[in-house]
């Protein structure tokens, strides 16, 4: 029973770049409908983990099971076609394309199968959810503000009908109010589309507010896991970010 609920599971995942061991034996899982936060200081290995999950990086060791299927060895484009969608860090919208084009590309693999019509309904859904994008759909993505670009990046992910959305630091570089807004949208997203989300954030408080559970990662290892409320009151988290008290 529980197994059916688990949409993604990793066991003993290890990754290194040359001399640098970025991940050490990471085992974690995400259940259907959850928002799971991945916390940790800079350089702890959070982004590496997401990139490994989406197939951009091949791990040295370990397994990734997504909806019951072993994912290691699959190319990033194959992974994306299986509705495991990674919204990368720094937004990475295509700056020279319009908002509409960016969104269309988000639906690239099913657009090619089912044509423009099928994407339209998806597009409507996204526009109703992110009205600002509808207003600016003809604008070049590169000219949007940071917050709007972030929304576009998330919306582009949503266009792919994700079963699991990997969000990498969606609030990075955003003013606090906008950051709150973006995270609020992520929560709404789950509620409305029942999208499962694995969220990488450095803003501990805000992310734990919308998350159900969380993992704390440090020096490439998972050092702590628990429900959002458990983690919120954990002293160690503060230490992980600000160092041991002097």
């Amino acid at each position, binding site marked *: 029973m529980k197994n059916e609920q688990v949409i993604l599971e990793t066991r003993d995942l290890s990754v290194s770049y040359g001399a640098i061991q970025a991940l050490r034996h990471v085992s974690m899982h995400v259940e259907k409908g959850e928002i799971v936060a991945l916390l940790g200081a800079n350089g702890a290995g959070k982004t590496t983990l997401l990139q490994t999950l989406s*197939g*951009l990086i091949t791990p040295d060791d370990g397994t990734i099971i997504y909806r019951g299927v072993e994912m290691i060895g699959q190319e990033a484009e194959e992974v994306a076609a299986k509705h495991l969608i990674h919204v990368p860090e720094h937004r*990475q919208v295509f700056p020279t394309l319009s908002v509409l084009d960016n969104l269309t590309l988000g639906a690239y693999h099913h657009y090619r199968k089912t044509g423009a019509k099928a994407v339209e309904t998806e597009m409507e859904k996204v526009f109703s959810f992110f009205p600002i994008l509808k207003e600016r759909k003809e604008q070049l993505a590169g000219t949007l503000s940071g917050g709007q670009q972030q929304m576009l990046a998330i919306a582009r992910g949503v266009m792919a009908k994700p079963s699991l959305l990997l969000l990498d630091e969606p609030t990075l570089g955003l003013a606090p109010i906008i950051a709150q807004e973006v995270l609020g949208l992520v929560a709404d997203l789950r509620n409305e589309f029942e999208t499962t989300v694995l969220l990488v954030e450095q803003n501990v408080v805000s992310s734990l507010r919308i998350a159900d559970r969380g993992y704390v990662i440090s020096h490439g290892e998972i050092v702590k896991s628990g429900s959002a409320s458990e983690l919120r009151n954990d002293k160690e988290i503060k230490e992980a970010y600000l160092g041991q008290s002097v």
Partner: protein
Amino acid sequence: MGEFLQFSVTGLTIGSIYAIVALGFVTIYSVTKVINLAQGEFVMLGGMIMFTFLNIGINYWISFLLTLILVMIIGWLVEWTIIRRAKGADPISLIILTIGIAIFIRGVASVVWGKGQVRIPAFSSNQSINIGPASITPQSMWVVFIMLLVVIFLYILIDKTIVGKAFQACSANPPAARLMGISPARMSSFSFTLSAGLGALAGLAVAPILFPAYDMGVMLGIKGFSAAILGGLGSAPGAVAGGLIIGFLESYGAGYISSGLKDAIAFTAILLILLIRPSGILGEKNVGKGGL
């Protein structure tokens, strides 16, 4: 005035030839960041293969089509067998690699077709048309027309279709494109196939004008490359502008200064433009890249 007009018509014809070849460079570069110096060889193959088909008695337009398809297959093969295996190499290596491909194709062509030039009939009549004091052959008009057609085709493909958008996505940010399920490898194949097709089309258009031979790709490749660079790599309008500029420079240079030095004049001008604008006239800007 009559002379000026004639020089302009000639410049337009030559420039359009260069522009089509340059568009082939741009098509590949904008997706893969590879400059394919064998582009001129695709042009040559277009002319020579057409000749072979005509020679064995196949109908003109069927030969035309078959040539296009065959050259596109060759382009696809080049990408699939060679370019793909050298991904991630630096520009210097890629330049040398594609020079190698060019030399190889040219060598094979000289073995297959020999060294002589061949004649290919024009698309339509040979009766030239007078525009005031100047005159132009129908085939030259075809060249200009095909150039325009290619520009429109590329515009529609790149700006109006999902594949074109995927092209742009791969160009701007390959890893992000992969996260959308777009395969940069497949796009690279596609761009080579397409640009081989463009090359072949250029070859077919110019074959009736300049008597193709195994080595015609050298000159066209160099001029096309220059046009693409001059326009700013990766910009289709730039390639057209670059091609036309070189065409006009050559024609006016030959007409008003010295026909012997026209290449030197054109290339000196290119050098000067590059010194003022190191990334070409419509050069790519680093859009969306904030810090280091």
